[in-house]
């Protein structure tokens, strides 16, 4: 039992989860398979000693995004999944092709100094203190502008969401008052 075995197990889980998520006709099953994929991915991050990313992967993706998707599914009319949702298979070839292309585009820049499994992090970037602290310092110092812009964006999105929700409520209230 070493890192290699762990890697292959986690990788298998992730790929399997992803495949089920794509192929499963029952929507809720699909979402849970997707969550398995997220958790597997978190495990991979953990294996790379990027614990903070792993945590965020679980917290945000498995926790928040998964639930968001579940809520979205609850709003569709085939809630209970009695009729398996028919996924159209038209154009799946092109879809696969585009996915592959995107994958390669992401892969190419990283492949140049890709760490091997036996040596997960390039020597020169090994951090001595905790990754969380490093991440914090990096986020606050060099990337502060990005963070601020993102924060603004998210706040705007939040306010917008509240306004949209309130708008519906307000018109309803007016109707009730009439």
């Amino acid at each position: 039992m070493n890192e290699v075995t762990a890697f292959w197990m986690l990788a298998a889980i992730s790929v399997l989860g992803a495949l089920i998520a794509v192929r499963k006709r029952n929507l809720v099953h699909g979402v849970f398979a997707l969550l398995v994929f997220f958790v597997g991915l978190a495990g991979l991050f953990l294996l790379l000693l990027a614990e903070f990313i792993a945590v965020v992967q679980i917290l945000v993706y498995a926790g928040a995004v998964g639930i968001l998707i579940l809520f979205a599914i609850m709003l569709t009319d085939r809630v209970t999944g009695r009729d398996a949702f028919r996924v159209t298979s038209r154009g799946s070839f092109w879809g696969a092709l585009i996915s592959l292309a995107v994958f390669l585009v992401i892969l190419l820049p990283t492949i140049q100094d890709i760490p091997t499994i036996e040596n997960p992090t390039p020597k020169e970037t090994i951090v001595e203190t905790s990754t969380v602290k490093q991440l914090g310092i990096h986020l606050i110092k060099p990337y502060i502008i990005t963070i601020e812009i993102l924060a603004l964006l998210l706040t705007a999105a939040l306010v917008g969401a509240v306004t949209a929700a309130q708008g519906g409520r307000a018109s309803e209230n007016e109707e009730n008052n009439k």
Partner: protein
Amino acid sequence: MTLDLIKDILLATVPLLIIFPTMFALTTWVERKALARIQNRIGPNKVGVPLTPYGGKLSLFGLGQPAADGIKMLFKENIVPTGADRLFHFLAPILSLIPSMLVLCFLPLDFPWLNGEQNSVKAFMLDGAVIFFFAITGLNTLAVFMAGWASRNKYSLLGGMRAIAQMVSYEIPLVLSAVVVVMIVGSLNADNIAKAQEGWNWFVFQPWGLAAFVIFFIGALAETNRSPFDLPEAESEIIAGYFTEYSGFKFALFFLGEYIAMFAISGLAVTLFLGAGAGPGVESLSWLKIFWFLTKVCILIGVMIWLRGTLPRLRVDQLMGFAWKFLLPLSILNIFVAGFAWHIKDANKETATSVVVWIASIIILYAAAKGLDRVNRAKVKPRTYQYGE
């Protein structure tokens, strides 16, 4: 290397797997006894330990009750409703247990036999231990939803939906109140947080720590579906909520998972605010650390039982309102208060200043809470009645 690793893992996890399920068994008994006494009943007092196979028993105030319950649960029929999603119906109880069990290893229970080891496994020493805790507890929500959805029962579905909404909402005040401690300590490492509170420097004695502790405790009640936030399993409304359709051992697993989650989150509260293992005598006897830690956890559980015996439950919208309109603003304000208090204290170390800061912080926080309460419950007040002759 492999054998060593396995040994280390066993040394670190097996005690957890012994201590907490035992505590669970005892807590079910204590809870039934305490609730009974609160309600002026006697509670379970019959099941004891049989002395001989032919009769005679030691009726230790009904202490045999947990064992009897467990045996009963094991042998009960496993009923899966027609049309239920059998796979998910089976998986949900297991999935609800895993996260609660998993987070136990993020509690700073520093077993003495781990210290001699070369390469001991101490998950709480992870840099993200606290945030790991929240991330993994969050997965509990999914198990609850799974149970509610897979049962194919309307009450279960309602319970599952309520559970999701509630857990997601209360996670925010929970995390924000923990952030205060993380901010002051400057570390997400549970061990560092515990070390920062050694002696009597418990954070609960700080004004911001007190406020954060109260918010955290309320959030913890909601997160573990305890009264007065037990809406997902509100008996008078939706039967038993998401585990309406569970019986036998699956139900027992849910039950176990819920209680372990209770211990876990109480343990985190102890770690963050109540000085973890700090207490009299820990300097000389390191064993006492674990004792004090578990004692504090038990006290928190006791308060939870006490609350359960006293309070009715909130309504869904009030529950949400409470989280978003009361706890969230308050916990955000608390972060600022903590920051200012820390800065002033850092600049000026006199006792008089710290007292002034203490009182001022408490006043600010209380005033804010009071104001929020008045805004939220403006129309709610006791009324007077008239009498006809």
